[in-house]
């Protein structure tokens, strides 16, 4: 029997002309936004106000307004930092891995995924700052020449590597995102009716002239940047993982952490993309561009990553037992699998390693409601994973006299709500003012070899 490779589904449904594509995608920029958009925007602004107030309290009164204590010195601040960073991996992973691997289906999703990355990283970047006891001295963390003699930062500290890694990552992904939008800016400028938008979009396009030389350079730089950023995807979360892995605390001090964190980050990023894309295609009628086969592709990736996650969890449990280290065994078996924090632990296992297994079945993959719910569950599950790592290890470490529990304060929850608000707010603006799908790139994948060319 000869293996017959299946004919892939079209990337864009319906025989659309280039003009039609431009019209479909850039419609939101011309139109006055819908009521729903305003409602979401206002809610996000309210959430940002809550976050702003919480930050104000944190900065003026002190970290004491959080629920932390002498033993659990890191809490929601670090949990949410890692969580947002994880989400911030999606865009780059999407664009870059799939770009490098020449997966053309990425074209209708990568733009929004990249936007998400940028907003998520800004949210993440807020935490290490807000988390500092003396934020007014945060510049101490940068290695800058100073007049204090040979006073330098501590290059041994993973927290310093964090600053460097995240800084690089933000710059690289923002550049990549911006660069990708340049051809579309010109398209918008050409369609724009007011002088002001013409000016703004024209300026943003940096004088794009659509010559073949420009296109050539554009593609070259995309690949170069992509190549560079691909390494960053791995390095950023590896370094975040090292914040924990280089410590001596049971449950943190493990060599599995860097790859485990990177995979986890991509996992949460992809599921966040899934969540958003399902909402976006519905809200902006983009079902023809973000087709069910796109969703299908992402869910298939999720199954695969979910398996890796499951293996990672099992490996951690096995190694802690195999090590024979009493402290490790206690942390894993009596403070995670059982104990005060067993419910978040089992939720984490269920959401991250068990639930996505439903996607083995095509029936479930095609059920958008289910996919949406599971994608949300994975996000929650990944949040619990960070919670389990940060809190269980600190709450019960070496000396039982130090053991305590941790409950976040309203202020910590408020900051989290604020970051969620900012994330949604950023996305709202993105959906309204920027090309939400890479127009120029989608145009390049509308044709299939099996199809007869359209007649113009």
């Amino acid at each position, binding site marked *: 029997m000869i293996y017959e490779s299946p004919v892939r589904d079209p990337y864009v449904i319906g025989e659309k002309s280039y003009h039609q594509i431009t019209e479909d995608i850039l419609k939101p920029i011309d139109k006055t936004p819908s009521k729903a958009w305003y409602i979401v925007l206002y809610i996000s602004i309210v959430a940002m106000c809550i976050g702003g107030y919480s930050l104000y309290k944190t900065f003026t009164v002190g970290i004491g307004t959080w629920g932390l204590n*002498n033993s659990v010195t890191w809490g929601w601040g670090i949990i949410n930092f890692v969580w947002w960073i994880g989400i911030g991996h999606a865009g780059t992973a999407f664009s870059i891995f799939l770009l490098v691997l020449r997966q053309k289906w990425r074209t209708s999703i990568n733009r929004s995924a990249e936007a998400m990355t940028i907003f998520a990283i800004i949210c993440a970047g807020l935490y290490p700052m807000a988390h500092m006891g003396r934020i007014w001295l945060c510049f101490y963390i940068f290695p800058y020449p100073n007049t204090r003699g040979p006073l330098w930062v501590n290059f041994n*500290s993973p927290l310093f590597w964090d600053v460097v890694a995240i800084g690089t990552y933000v710059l690289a992904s923002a550049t990549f995102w911006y660069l990708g939008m340049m051809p579309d800016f010109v398209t918008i400028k050409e369609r724009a009716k007011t002088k002001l938008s013409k000016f703004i979009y024209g300026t943003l396009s940096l004088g794009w002239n659509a010559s073949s030389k420009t296109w050539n350079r554009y593609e070259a730089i995309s690949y170069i940047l992509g190549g560079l950023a691909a390494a960053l995807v791995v390095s950023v979360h590896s370094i975040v993982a090292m914040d924990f892995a280089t410590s*001596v605390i049971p449950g943190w001090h493990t060599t599995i952490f860097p790859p485990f964190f990177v995979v986890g980050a991509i996992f949460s990023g992809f599921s966040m993309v899934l969540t958003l894309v399902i909402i976006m295609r519905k809200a902006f009628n983009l079902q023809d561009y973000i087709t069910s086969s796109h969703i299908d592709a992402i869910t298939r990736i999720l199954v695969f990553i979910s398996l890796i996650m499951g293996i990672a969890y099992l490996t951690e449990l096995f190694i802690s037992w195999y090590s024979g280290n009493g402290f490790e065994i206690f942390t894993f078996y009596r403070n995670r699998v059982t104990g005060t924090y067993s419910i978040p632990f089992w939720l984490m296992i269920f959401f991250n390693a068990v639930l996505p297994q439903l996607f083995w079945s095509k029936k479930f993959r095609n059920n958008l409601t289910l996919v949406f719910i599971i994608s949300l569950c994975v996000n929650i599950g990944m949040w619990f994973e960070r919670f389990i790592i940060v809190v269980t290890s600190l709450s019960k470490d070496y000396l039982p006299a130090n053991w305590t529990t941790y409950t976040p304060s309203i202020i910590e929850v408020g900051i989290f709500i604020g970051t969620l608000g900012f994330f949604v707010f950023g996305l709202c603006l993105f959906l309204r003012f920027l090309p939400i799908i890479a127009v120029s790139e989608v145009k390049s994948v509308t044709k299939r070899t099996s199809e007869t060319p359209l007649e113009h």
Partner: protein
Amino acid sequence: MKNYWTNLDKNHAIDTTSINEKITDTEKSNLEFLEDNEFVEMATSRRNFLKLCGFSVTVAALATGCETPITNAIPLLIKPEEITPGIANHYASTYFDGNYFCPILVKVRDGRPIKIEGNDLSKTTKGGTTAQVQASVLNLYDSERLSTPLIKGEKSKWEETHVQVMSHLQAVTKKGDKIIILSTPIISPSTLKALDLFKEKYPTTEVVYYEPVSFSGILKANLECFGKQVVPSYYFNKAKVIVSFSADFLGTWLSPVEFISQYAEGRSLQTAGNVMAKHIQLEAGFSVTGSNADVRIPIHPLEEGNILIALYNAIATKSGADLLPENKDYQPPFDVLSIANELWLNKSQSLVLSGSNDMNIQIIVNGINQLLNNYNNTINLDFPYLTKKAIDEDMTRIIAEMNSGDVGAILLNDVNPAYDYPEANQFIAALKKVDFSALLTDRITETASHTEDVLALDNFLESWGDYEPKKEEYSFAQPCIPKLFDTCSFLECLLIWTEIKTTPYEFIKLTTQENLFPTQTTYTDFDNFWSIALQSGIFVPKEKIEIIKTVTKEKQKKVEKEEPILDINKKLYESSSKINIKKDKNSLVLEMIPNIAIGSGAYANNPWLQELPDPITKVSWDNVASVSVKYAKEKGIITGQLISINNTITIPAFVQPGQENNTITIALGYGRKNVGKAGNNVGQNSYPLLKIVNGEKLYHTDVISVTFLNTEYPLALSQTHDVMEGRSIIRETSLKQYLEKPSSGNEEREEILKESTSLYPAAEFPGHHWGLSIDLNACTGCNSCLVACQAENNVPVVGKEQVQKRRIMHWIRLDRYYAGNPENPEMVQMPIMCQQCDSAPCENVCPVAATMRSNEGINQMAYNRCIGTRYCMSNCPYKMRRFNWFQFAKNDSFDFNMNNDLGRMVLNPDVVVRSRGVVEKCSFCTQRIQESKLKAKLEDRPLKDGEILPACAQACPAKAIVFGDLNDTKSEVSQRFNNPRHYHLLEQLHTQPSVGYLTKIRNIDNDINKEEV
């Protein structure tokens, strides 16, 4: 001098203008436009408006922009000889609060006392202190002290007050009515002399002593048995077997600072040559003393007497003395015979004592000690404590006298019966029947509102004093700061009221000259003697030392030859028959005891003491009702649940392992209503629950009713997990195992050392390498080091809410764990501070390099550099780093001593007050190390071992903490590090701490191999 002119016009002007005019001229030139008619009359034009604006803005800027002049700093015009700004002076003085005494050194920096340390010249306390003594310096700077005397609640002047008091006293004397002075025990020879003079002037005077925590039972028992109304001296260091019935002698009973030192000596394996005293504690509530005991037996307070009779009889059988009648129905729940055997084997080297206030029980105790020939060996009646004087019955008597109207005036000296007398209302009612009443106190107390006058007393650091805490053992107090407020000492008042025209200083000097100077031969000149006595702070007549050495031996011989001098058998019969009538031993009983931090409650406004976690319950800022595990299970009580006892007290329950099943224990000293911001309404007052039976105060009472409320009360617990989870944190062994193998219990260290290796080169310390060793066998858990550290290092008080959130700032923590049967577990304790690791996990994770190891092995914090990421705290396996969650100084949300100018005077200027957002921790008292190093350098000599004493080591009465240079192989700390008992906490992590521990040893025959609770 010639005037040179600069131009022709000026030349002319100079000739004609006088100097005065010239000055006016220059002034005028600056301000002339103001005087200018044109200016005054000018129209309000835009230009003029701007001109004026400009002028006023400039003036405002000049007037306010400059720094306001410092008004308070007055430089010393002539520098006093002994004061060098920035260098601390230590003055010998004495702490006595009416209960505990302690010879001390007061560290005075730039005119203000900032720290109290033990006086190491004292042979009794040997330089140790208790937590209360350490904290007492803060009482001086209590902003709620009285600043003037009050007459009927109105502020008054001393002259007027004295006149008013004297006129009342004279009127009362003329009338022939009684004057009562109700006072805390007075141990000052000169005050006693002044009192005698006072009595001469006002002959109807009676002095009555009053103590909230009474020793009346012992005083009366000794009067009955030996004809001496005294509390004898105890020598725990000479005893090989100590059997204590609910006497918390290592925590609160009589003179803990002295007993801890003796106890540690008697149980130290280094000095006593492998002989270790055995300690058996029988008690109801878990005490610090009980936690140190080799054997602890929970007993019901009502069966104490019966057990003692059984014990007496068991010993009497051996010695051949007459047996006492025993209650036939009573069967001791444990083997009394084995205890008797052990005591008998160590005859004349044993000690039996009881904390009971029941005279009959104390008589039996005396009988046992008599049988065991302990008098003049481990107990001495000839040199008794003079700190305990109150007889309970006196209070009942004077209340009756006051009610009958015989009493014309009452002077209350530093007592607070409206708070701490069980029948406070009766006392207050009686007080109203007295024509004139005055209270001498340092603050408005509960009693103050019921007396006519309130006379503001000095703090002990502000006045002169002399003390005789134990017979023929003297100590002195000198003022270390000018009086902060318009206050008087009791002696000063007495002298004025007696119309003796002398100052307290002169009076004390005179008394000393008359009494003490003749008892010595070393000094021929009194002034010389006086200055030496003040300088050393203590004086012991030569005879006493000789007497202790020789005379007791003679006496001992006498006693051995003859039968007991006094026939106490009759008393014993009486007492035992009285004890035997006592009722049901299975009923629920409430027991009231003082605790380590608050004691009787007089210093409840001291935030350091309020925040000090109780060593057993780990509760701060509250007292609790400790119930047994069994009782809690039966009734379904959980820790923190409110319970109401006898409908008089509603208090949170605390499930206490080791609590006797039928008792509930509550600490005294809480629930003050009028003591100050920090202490008001903290906990519940349990004094009203005390029972007065035939005038005797009983510190236990029957529980008639207990109601369990469904409300949970938030307790500020600084430790919530009580078992070690099988981790070798506190390593322990039995004496038997230790004698077989000194490193027993410490086997893990050998294994770890065998496998210990590192990829990195070991840290090198070319100069000093500071190390600290804690002997867990000596540490009793007295908490003195915690407060000493807090005082030395400006550690902030955070308040109940923050302690509850587990954010206590103490740089030393006392971890306590239970092991064994939950109904009678063993308890172990361990002081933990920053371990100053040579390979510190905190150091390599700090992104800004704010914490670094010094080349002397100290893990130092650069507060200025810290940005507060708390990564170091997360990565510290000992969790001994502390974060400033809030601005703790000058913040109204934390209204403790660091929030007022007066309270901040206690701050140590050598240690920075940390700001919000900074991580801090133990620095090995780096300021003290530096001070000693500089001193040695100036004197051009090497540092001596033991010269540097961190605050914790200095305060430790057991000398459990030793600090020194590990590079010096002869130093005590190096020797301890080479002891087979030595180990490091969590050494398997290869953190290589500079703090070491010595294993704990219990004097029991069986192997230590216990399960956890």
